[in-house]
């Protein structure tokens, strides 16, 4: 069993906490339910959530890099 960490298994790392960022922001509705600031014609509600898709992908890519 020595090749498995007590925390959950092989490859587990603290980097996984990064995954909480997109998760929490995506569900914090009052945070983004607003029009301003507008960006390229898009109200905040829309561009923020589209941007969050990228944030989510980057977060996972980071964890993947750290854990290999």
């Amino acid at each position, binding site marked *: 069993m020595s090749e498995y960490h007590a925390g959950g*298994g092989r490859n587990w790392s603290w980097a996984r906490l990064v995954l909480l960022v997109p998760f929490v922001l995506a569900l914090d509705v009052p945070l983004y339910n607003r029009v301003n600031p507008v960006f390229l014609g898009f*109200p905040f509600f829309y561009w923020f959530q589209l941007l969050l898709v990228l944030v989510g992908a980057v977060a996972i890519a980071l964890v993947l890099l750290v854990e290999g």
Partner: protein
Amino acid sequence: MNGTIVTVFVVIFALITVMGFVAARWRAGDMDLLHEWGLGGRRFGTFVAWFLIGGDLYTAYTFIAVPALMFGAGAIGFFAVPYTIIIYPLLYLVFPRLWSVAKKHGYVTVSEFVGGRYRNRWLTLAIAATGLLATMPYIALQLVGIQVVIGAMGLSGDLPILIAFVILAAFTYTSGLRAPAMIAFVKDGLIYLVVIVAIFAIPAQLGGWGAVFAKIPAAKLLLAAPKGASVGAYGAYATLAFGSAAALFFYPHAITGILSSQSRQVVRRNAALLPAYSLILGLLALFGFLAIAKGVGTLPGDVAGFKTFGPNFAVPALILASFPSWFAGVAFAAIAVGALVPAAVMSIAAANLFTRDIYRPFFAPDCPPAAEAQVAKIVSLVVKLGALAFVLFLPFKYAIQLQFLGGIWISQTVPSILIGLYTRALNGWALLVGWAAGMAVGSWMVAALHFAGTVYPLHLFGVLVPGYAAVWALATNLVVSVVLSVVFNLLASDRDRDETVPADYFT
């Protein structure tokens, strides 16, 4: 009827049909074996898996149902974006474990995993039956998508949808998962093309995105702020996103996509790569607003379409009003093929489930592999007929309600599978009772809403919380499963009944 649109559509569709049959020979395997027919031999690499899983998860739901909700109900429809953000951390964390244990023990379905983990045939049956049940409305949603597009081309009667149905059934039967995997390349190519052209061309016709958003009524532009002792639309938005996300990867077709990967590394990489589709989904959702800005529904040609299909007609009407006929043909083909790929994977996944977890254990324990694959092929046809029944007998205004309904049911398999992937602490019988409680609560709520919606308002500590019924049902399920597990394991623990060992989850 517009000759150019129909011609382009038929040509693309014919090409897809040929591909579907040729696919049987792609990386050829023995189609008399279930894991060859139903999982493509578990040998799809990162690239193919990206197309297949993306093509499998982003369905008529994305192209028709979500934009229709945006068109009709406004900002609430954008919940699909946070939904598809939070699925990927889940995919990264949880599903490599499922891939590993499934590969190690030769599981083709998720209920086989539950069977091996808990050694409780009734729990296994419940998980398999739920997968079958939840898949049918989801396939139905795909059929609605195809129907809407066919209607938009001015073709009437049931013959066109019947032809599409027969083509789908025939190539699924002969080529198994290889058919949608191969067609997914064309599907995704067409979808990306149409979306990218549309998000530049249509706003340009309307004076830019700023002008588009300026035409959206305030009530639709943002969620209504909560009033008094209620979390209002915020609760609905967040629980729809969370509940849908909790459900997604537990659908049989999603699991089939994951298990067809060549390695756990393919699954992990795709968790970082698949969000590209979520961007497309977000832009497609905004097609609902483009349709409002374009004034579809008020245009003379649209009246019949909206009368038949309701808000689901928004995207086809927008395409007809914005593009020359030949490109409208391409766009409609993209939507129809986009619905066909997931419908094929869904029916294959449901067939795998029935064969491995219901037919073999309960009816034919000594069934030889070739007979097993044969049963699966036949069941893939039967499931599609079940889906047709949902289309005909459940008259939802928004097609998306079909997916919400499936989500309520499938999320009741989450405790057995998700917790089971990490620990054997819960008791199989307790999970079975928890499952039954969740199914009952979720179905009762939908019935209480007269099948017109799936957001059920609950009074919690003096606050009114309108929330997706899947979340309430899942909470009930979890509480019952955990509490009863403590009791049952004290009386008669079943924890030694487990054919897996911890190392199986990492290999």
